[in-house]
């Protein structure tokens, strides 16, 4: 199979810059590609260096391993003999890093609507050129996900103190995609801790308790059922490792896309509602066709708020358009008041249908005593059994 490769040739000897398009077989290596360039330009191929993905490619790298698309540009550099690009790492090690950087990532691809293999690309943070060389290799996820961690030299804008910008793309469709840091290949074919199945792509929250995609998806969906997500700042409402006793959590909500679009939206809406409920100045619009969450202004407050989205105005206490806080003919309200007590933290009506007085609020997570309606204390432990 042969495809056109777009090449930018930067000739430092003459200061010229040329764009080339060469048709090559994907099985050829960089050395052969350089020979092709030599034939077109009469520049000896041993004077050419190839820069891609932040580093100098070794001559034996095979084209198809680069996962190039017609839009990708390869940078060929003809250096001054005096200032040849420094190559510190030996060729063998370089080869290894090449393949691991190109193929060991998984991403959530919106276009493909699924977990896909991803590729990592490196750009100049200043001019977005791909003609950059990293000065140090990224060692972990933080190095690629946070900005200004990896210094580069850019052959295009040549400014000092430049940093790399990393982007992930879907290997299937080439669109930009979100990196999934908790998804990895199951190289040793270990068993899923939930179903004992052996799948190739697994979830691992960094604790080595692996679970297959199907189980992780079911786990997410059942957690969404009664919104058992736990609030863990700075990650927000998240889920812990399915292994008993393990407290590792999912650190990036992109992983929740696995639930499917409608469940993911459901998650977002409910998580927002919960966060708003925790905040004293947060409120959720009771209009059935709205449900927007927002913060109300504490100035000149009359206890009523207007939703900024649908403009529905309501009483924040009883959530009715025409406030019924003062009326006593509301049967539902009387019943709820008679059979429940309110959580001392989030005010949610709570019914106790058995067990001890130790209440764990499923809405805000507070542990409180049903008897004295305050946070659970030592005295409650001893005296407030029933």
């Amino acid at each position, binding site marked *: 199979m042969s495809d056109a490769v777009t090449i930018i040739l930067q000739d430092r000897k003459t200061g010229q810059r040329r764009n080339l398009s060469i048709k090559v077989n994907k099985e050829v290596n960089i050395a052969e590609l350089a020979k092709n360039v030599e034939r077109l330009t009469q520049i000896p191929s041993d004077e050419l260096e190839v820069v891609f993905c932040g580093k100098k490619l070794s001559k034996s790298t095979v084209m198809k391993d680069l996962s190039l698309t017609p839009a990708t540009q390869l940078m060929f550099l003809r250096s001054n003999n005096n200032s040849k690009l420094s190559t510190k790492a030996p060729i063998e090690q370089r080869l290894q890093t090449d393949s691991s950087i190109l193929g060991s990532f998984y991403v959530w691809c919106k276009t493909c609507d699924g977990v896909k293999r991803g590729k990592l690309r490196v750009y100049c943070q200043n001019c977005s050129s791909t003609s950059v060389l990293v000065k140090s290799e990224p060692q972990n996820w933080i190095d690629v996900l946070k900005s200004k961690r990896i210094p580069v030299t850019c052959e295009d804008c040549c400014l000092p103190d430049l940093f790399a910008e990393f982007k992930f793309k879907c290997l299937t469709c080439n669109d930009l995609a979100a990196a999934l840091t908790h998804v990895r290949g199951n190289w040793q074919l270990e068993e899923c*801790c*939930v*179903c*004992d*199945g052996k799948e190739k792509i697994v979830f691992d929250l960094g604790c080595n*308790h692996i*679970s297959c995609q*199907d*189980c992780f998806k*079911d*786990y997410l*969906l*059942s957690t969404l059922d*009664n919104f*058992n997500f736990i609030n863990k700042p700075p990650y927000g409402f998240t889920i*812990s*490792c*399915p*292994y*008993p*006793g*393990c407290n590792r959590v999912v650190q990036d909500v992109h992983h929740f896309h696995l639930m499917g679009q409608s469940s993911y939206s459901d998650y977002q809406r409910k998580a927002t509602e919960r966060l708003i409920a925790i905040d004293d100045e947060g409120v959720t619009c009771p209009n059935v066709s709205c449900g927007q969450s927002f913060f109300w202004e504490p100035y000149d407050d009359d206890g009523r708020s207007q939703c900024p989205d649908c403009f529905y105005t309501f009483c924040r206490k009883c959530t009715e358009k025409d406030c019924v806080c003062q009326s006593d003919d509301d049967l539902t309200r009387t019943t709820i008041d008679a059979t429940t007590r309110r959580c001392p933290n989030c005010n949610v009506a709570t019914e106790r249908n*058995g*067990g*001890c007085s*130790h209440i*764990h609020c*499923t809405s805000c997570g507070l542990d409180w005593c049903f008897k004295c309606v305050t946070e659970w204390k030592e005295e409650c*432990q*001893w005296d407030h*059994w*029933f």
Partner: protein
Amino acid sequence: MSATRRLQKELGDLKNCGVKAYENVECEETNLLKWTVLLLPDKEPYNKGAFKVGITFPVDYPFKPPKVAFETKIYHPNVDEEGKFCLPIVTAENWKPATKTEQVMMALLSLINEPEPSHPIRADVAEEFQKDHKKFMKTAEEHTRKHSEKRPE
């Protein structure tokens, strides 16, 4: 993943695990979701009897926890008259899908062997346990003799 596959595996593992603390692990002939297990606590005042525990698995097991309750009456600060108890690892908030029934049984056994009077479900029994331990032991032993199942030979 189907609940059936995992339950079949767990049932097989439990039957063959050779742990002496529980025996007669069985499921209903026509319903894999309903099990009974005979618990054999090894501490006084419960070590003279066997206690039947019913386990009901939800259809979406293991993503929802099983419901576990005693079918044999037991005199214990943490078990109510209907056989219900609070066991954190099988509550909806704490449940983890990788928790196996064997771990649930071990947690229940340790609750029975070491009562937690600070988290009681029967206040009267907890009070007796703490204030008149002798009387508690006597009542519980008698209760065990009267109500519990026979230990298998």
